[in-house]
């Protein structure tokens, strides 16, 4: 029986992976080949999707991008045993794009069968949890603190410190909440793990529960990810059936229950307090802080809210020890970061590496420049609230402090590439527009400021009194930054100001004859 892998990841499906799988099954049957088809997650080399892999002698050989129409010729070229077909890529692990990565959190993604807990375990899964089950809660927290892990959802807050607060909070009931709202454009790391290695998240959440004394967790998945949500529910059901979840976790006598919940199309529900409101069944409006969610979170109980990647990194830290994780990275940014290359990029996909790669290395070496073949002009890093970077700043190393020092942020690790046809005035306008659409409406600088900002930039774009209107936009940005209750209003100035500072020529426009204010 030869094992053939065709990803069941949503992105792979979006370019025809199901049809490829069906064609392989059909032709194999017709030709009498005994083939076991595995629907793995994605390896994250999206320009090669659907990436079909064949296992020969324990090694995996890739073909891609494969269309259903290629399948007959793959069999004709005997792809089950040879690499003669033009789509042959050779041994997948040796592809330079993958070989140059340091995959810790994504070590199994794209490799295992995400529907099989046994496969997860066979590839090293559950080792972290087994170790944690033998540890005192405070020791688990100390291990996470010493690893240097910081939140991967955007704010970069030290995870161990958050956990310690929840551990020390009194209360008969505590919660672990996984933030899988992944609202930032240009990001898909959470989605890939939910679809490619969901037991990793479950393991991380059980460890978090042991660490802080919580017995219930929620995974809040955005509704824009219907496929990932179904995969999550299926993984939770099999984890429960296998005793990884429930009243007696792996026979330890410890309890942990988990539920997946669907968001409902609101970017603001990625913000942790808004997410908690949403889970409780209310409008997703921001809560005033304090109290911190760690003290009074879900239903008023002490609650850990962590990004999915943060939680999914915990099993590796527990399995290999804090020091092994902390040894990766630069400065105060320890460990690895899954960087997600997106937009107009030749080789779009997931690059997990220690912090410290420069933007040039990310965009040029991994990304291979633009998909259009035109020059790169700008990248936006960190989602819709992240800065636009010109190529003159591409020597900036990817780490929390280095990015902040230059007026940007790492965020959740999304890097969106634009070629020289981009108009940064329009991108800045979009930042305001997005803020206006997604504002929760609780505070004035954000609710009104975003609308005013978009209107004022419309005037700039029409060439109407640009100097005065640009000054107005800058003032407005200051008001939003200082006066907003949360980072949606507070950080919308980041893409706007970076566009104004680094791409002033795009705002200097001729007045249009028809433009009347």
């Amino acid at each position, binding site marked *: 029986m030869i094992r053939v892998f065709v990803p069941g990841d949503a992105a792979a499906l979006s370019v025809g992976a199901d049809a490829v799988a069906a064609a392989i099954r059909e032709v194999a049957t017709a030709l009498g080949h005994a083939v076991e088809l595995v629907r793995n997650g994605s390896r994250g080399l999206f320009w090669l999707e659907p990436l079909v892999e064949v296992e020969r002698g324990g090694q995996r050989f890739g073909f891609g991008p494969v269309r259903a129409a290629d399948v007959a010729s793959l069999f004709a070229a005997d792809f089950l045993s040879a690499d003669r077909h033009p789509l042959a890529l050779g041994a997948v692990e040796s592809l330079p794009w993958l070989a140059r990565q340091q995959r810790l959190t994504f070590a199994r993604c794209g490799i295992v069968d995400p529907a099989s807990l046994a496969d997860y375990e066979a590839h090293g899964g559950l080792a972290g949890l087994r170790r944690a089950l033998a540890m005192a809660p405070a020791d688990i927290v100390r291990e996470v603190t010493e690893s240097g892990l910081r939140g991967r959802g955007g704010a970069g807050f030290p995870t161990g410190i958050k956990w310690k607060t929840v551990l020390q909070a009194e209360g008969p009931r505590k919660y672990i909440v996984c933030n899988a709202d992944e*609202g930032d454009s240009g990001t898909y790391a959470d989605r890939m793990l939910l679809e490619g290695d969901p037991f990793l998240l479950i393991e991380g959440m059980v460890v978090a529960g042991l660490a802080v004394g919580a017995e219930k967790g929620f995974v809040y998945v955005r509704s824009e990810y219907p496929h990932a949500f179904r995969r999550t529910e299926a993984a939770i059901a099999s984890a429960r059936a296998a005793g990884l979840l429930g009243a007696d976790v792996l026979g330890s006598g410890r309890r942990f229950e988990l539920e997946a919940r669907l968001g409902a199309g*609101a970017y603001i529900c990625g913000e942790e307090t808004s997410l908690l409101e949403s889970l409780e069944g209310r409008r997703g409006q921001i809560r005033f802080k304090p109290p911190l969610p760690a003290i009074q979170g879900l239903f008023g109980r002490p609650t850990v809210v962590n990004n999915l990647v943060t939680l999914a990194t915990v099993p590796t830290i527990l399995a290999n020890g804090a020091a092994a994780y902390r040894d990766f990275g630069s400065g105060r940014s320890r460990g690895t970061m899954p960087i997600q290359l997106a937009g107009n990029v030749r080789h779009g996909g997931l690059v997990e590496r220690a912090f410290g790669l420069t933007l040039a290395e990310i965009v040029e070496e991994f990304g291979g420049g633009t998909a259009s073949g035109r020059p790169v002009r700008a990248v*936006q890093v960190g989602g*819709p609230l992240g800065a636009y970077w010109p190529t003159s700043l591409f020597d900036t190393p990817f780490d929390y402090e280095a990015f902040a020092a230059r007026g940007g942020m790492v965020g959740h690790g999304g890097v969106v590439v634009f070629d020289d046809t981009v108009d940064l005035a329009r991108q800045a306008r979009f930042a305001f527009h997005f803020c206006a659409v997604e504002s929760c409406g609780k505070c004035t600088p954000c609710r009104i400021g975003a609308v005013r900002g978009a209107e004022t930039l419309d005037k700039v774009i029409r060439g109407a009194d640009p100097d005065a209107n640009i000054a107005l936009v800058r003032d407005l940005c200051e008001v939003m930054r200082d006066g907003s209750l949360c980072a949606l209003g507070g950080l919308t100035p980041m893409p706007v100001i970076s566009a104004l500072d680094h791409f002033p020529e795009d705002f200097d426009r001729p007045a249009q004859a028809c433009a009347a204010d």
Partner: protein
Amino acid sequence: MDGPAAAASGAAFDAGAVIEIAERLQGLEGPLLPILHALMDRFGHVDERAIPVIAEVLNLSRAEVHGVVSFYHDFRRMPAGRHVVRQCRAEACQAMGGEALAADLERQLGVSFGGTTADGRVTLEAVYCLGNCALSPAALVDGELVGRADADGILARVAGGAR
């Protein structure tokens, strides 16, 4: 979300079914969103008349339930068209011609974003990121993700009368 049965049903209001769904899910911690999603899956929209019914089962005020329904983009108040196209309008898709695609779809369908074609065939909506940003531009067509989307491909998927 756009379940397969979503907009196609456009079924008449059925208070009994709403009560059944609400009572089945009311034991959850924070049951309101799961109930509203279940209504979307079943009926394709949240009927105005469902609001007092849910409020009664959950012992909430109508205003509270109404406030939640209106806050979230997902909970439609009216049935959608027979097909729903949700095109990503966020940055990674903009970088790959997403705005031209949006204009193309509006022109060819003869409808603006947020609207439904006059024949009730297609509802066109904006979303902001589908997590397919390395294969942009992206769209969800009747709940199915499409990568490297173009107008012809999307229109072909919604050409038929039914799903």
